[in-house]
């Protein structure tokens, strides 16, 4: 139980995809980033991450290791991302049309996200078992979702237009992300054992 909590905490706080590993930062930094949009992007990334992690774990164990062709890993994982996104889109379109309407374009965007591919590689590097894989992918996705929602909410509280003109737009958003990353600096090396 403690290990589960530890893994979740590490994935969300200590190794947050966006703020600590700096992956997956390709979300729209425009003014029309509303909270709904943040939820959509976060949920779609989480879904894609979990499915990709599952597929890539299976590919790794059943194909790559079995046949000894580990040098095809990058190609295989890229394909697994594509497969995951395609699979999810079809499933949602057929079974959850409401969800599909909301998440369609965001799902397509996640193909370009390095966070998804990153999760697959981290899982391979650390030799996680299947339950650990799924948990880690889910928690990483939740971490990204949390950062997006918090960032969007913060836009209401702290207006980003009060800085000098040079910093308006992307620079102040990066500074804000950097400050949030500074807050998470204390969680580096979190070890729940």
């Amino acid at each position, binding site marked *: 139980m403690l290990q589960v909590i*530890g893994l979740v*905490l590490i994935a969300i*706080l200590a190794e947050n995809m966006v703020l600590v590993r700096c992956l997956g930062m390709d979300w729209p930094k425009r003014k029309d980033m509303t909270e709904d949009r943040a939820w959509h992007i976060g949920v779609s990334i989480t879904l894609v991450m979990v499915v990709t992690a599952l597929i890539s774990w299976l590919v790794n164990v059943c194909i790559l290791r079995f046949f000894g062709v580990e*040098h*095809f890993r990058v*190609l295989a994982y890229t*394909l697994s991302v594509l497969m995951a996104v395609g699979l999810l889109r079809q499933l949602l379109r*057929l*079974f*959850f*049309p*409401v*969800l599909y309407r909301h998440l369609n374009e965001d799902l397509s965007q996640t193909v370009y996200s390095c966070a998804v591919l990153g999760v697959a590689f981290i899982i391979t590097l650390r030799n996680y078992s299947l339950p650990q894989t799924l948990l880690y992918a889910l928690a990483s996705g939740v971490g990204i979702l949390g950062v997006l929602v*918090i960032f969007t*909410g*913060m836009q*209401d*509280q*702290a*207006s*980003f237009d*009060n*800085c*000098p003109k040079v*910093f308006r737009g992307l620079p*102040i958003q990066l*500074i*804000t992300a950097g*400050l*949030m990353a*500074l*807050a*998470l*600096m*204390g*969680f*580096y*090396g*979190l*070890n*729940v*054992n």
Partner: protein
Amino acid sequence: MSRVYAGKSSFPCIKDRASVDSIMLDVLVALTPALVMGAFLFGFRVLVLAAISVLSCMGFELLYCKWTKKPVTIRDLSACVTGLLLSMTLPVTAPYWAPVLGGAFAIIVVKQFYGGLGKNFMNPALAGRMLLLSFPGMMTTWVDALDRQAVVGVDAVSTATPMAYLHLGKLPDLTLSQLLLGQHGGAMGEVASFMLLLGGAYLLCRRVISWRIPVCFLGTVAMFSFVFPKGNDPLDWAVCNLFSGGLMLGAIFMATDYTTSPVTPRGQILYGIGCGCLTVVLRSYGSYPDGVGFSILTMNCCVWLLDRVGLPRRFGVRPLTETRSWALGTLRRLGKLRPTIPERREKAVRGTMPGERDLDRIRSWSKNAAAMTAVIVVMAICIGGVNRATGRIIAVRENREQQELLEQVMPAAQVVTETPYMAEDALSILAGYNENELIGYCVEVEVQGFGGVVTMVVGVDVNGEVTGVTVTGHSEHAGIGGQALEQDYLGQYVGLSGTVRDEGRNSVDAISGATDTCRAITAGVNKALYIASRLDAGEVEYMDGQV
């Protein structure tokens, strides 16, 4: 009549005497006892550092206002408070440029870039301190109490603070009065817990802060450290946790900063509890000994959420009505996501045969699929070809790396083979031979270092002595633990056996400033020694698998 109010405008006409600068002045007054106690314990340098910090913060605010042509706001004393708080979190051995740098970051980036007083989302003093933490050597040289430092030139004998003991799970050897009065190592303003409590009581009486955040913060930390103590005496553990480190300063002065804490009463309670929980998590499982600052900064990012959750109940509406309606609304929205069974629509379109649309779709799709398959095949061929061509080179290089490893770890061995032994904590166990004679085992272990996992290979010969240590993977910062990964340090382990201790006999000289990493490496060496000793005794699992 000097002022005529016509009708009902601008009422009420009497006002509370508090204003922003009077509130900030109250905070400064509340901080003074702790500062004075710090000066008594650590010398006059404390006051000089504080003065530099305050002056530099005010100076940067003035400069920024002049540069951006905004009205000058140093009169409201908020920059003074930031400067004083920042200086109180520094160790007395900090160089004089440290508060200047921290103050610049705190005032200009964290506070003014977001609009100045009332508009920042993160506590400026804490953010400045965390920036200085990236110079870790400077921020972690703690001096013992009553070792008064000169104003110019620091002659520090570094000591372990109570927080360092707690981080290792041991109780510091201090009485309660020593803890309260600050007779131990630590930051300038954080040691004198009793003075900080006095200041907090003053602020509560003057109604500057509300009781909610400090009580919830301290209460949560006390409760968790009482319920999950590391050691035998829960009360002692809880008390030590409460009064060591930056908890008092953080809970009473930093977490209650107006702009970066929630405004709603319920939000404040949640904020205090959240800070407490994160502090406990960081203190128990994190790498840094004291997690108060980081926990407050993390909760600062969530304040807008806490305000929304803690909206006060509308007068006249029954409690939990809003919560109930929100819950029902969310359930309703989630209920819309019910799975539906897809229907196969066989709409006959005039002029086409049934199923022809599907065929068209497959035809168009197959074009894309063919292109993609072609790309994949080409890439696979390229990758496969390159792998074939470079496979041999890679194998040769791997061999060479292993030889180098071997030379470092077990110089006497010439050949290294994998063994079928598998132990729980070892990643792999290799055996080193020199002309068919077993020299020893190279055990690859993983330990938790400061910034993450450290992978190392330890060579143990058949007599149970270490022949060499090398680190193959780590996530330590170059500045913090980097020195401990060099061969100069690792060479000290050669020849040791049994259990390597931290001090005394059979120990290694740790590098100051990298104590965590050194301790981790010692633990790894001990693990490897233990595993190697068990190999001969047959307690290691023998796995018949691929060698």
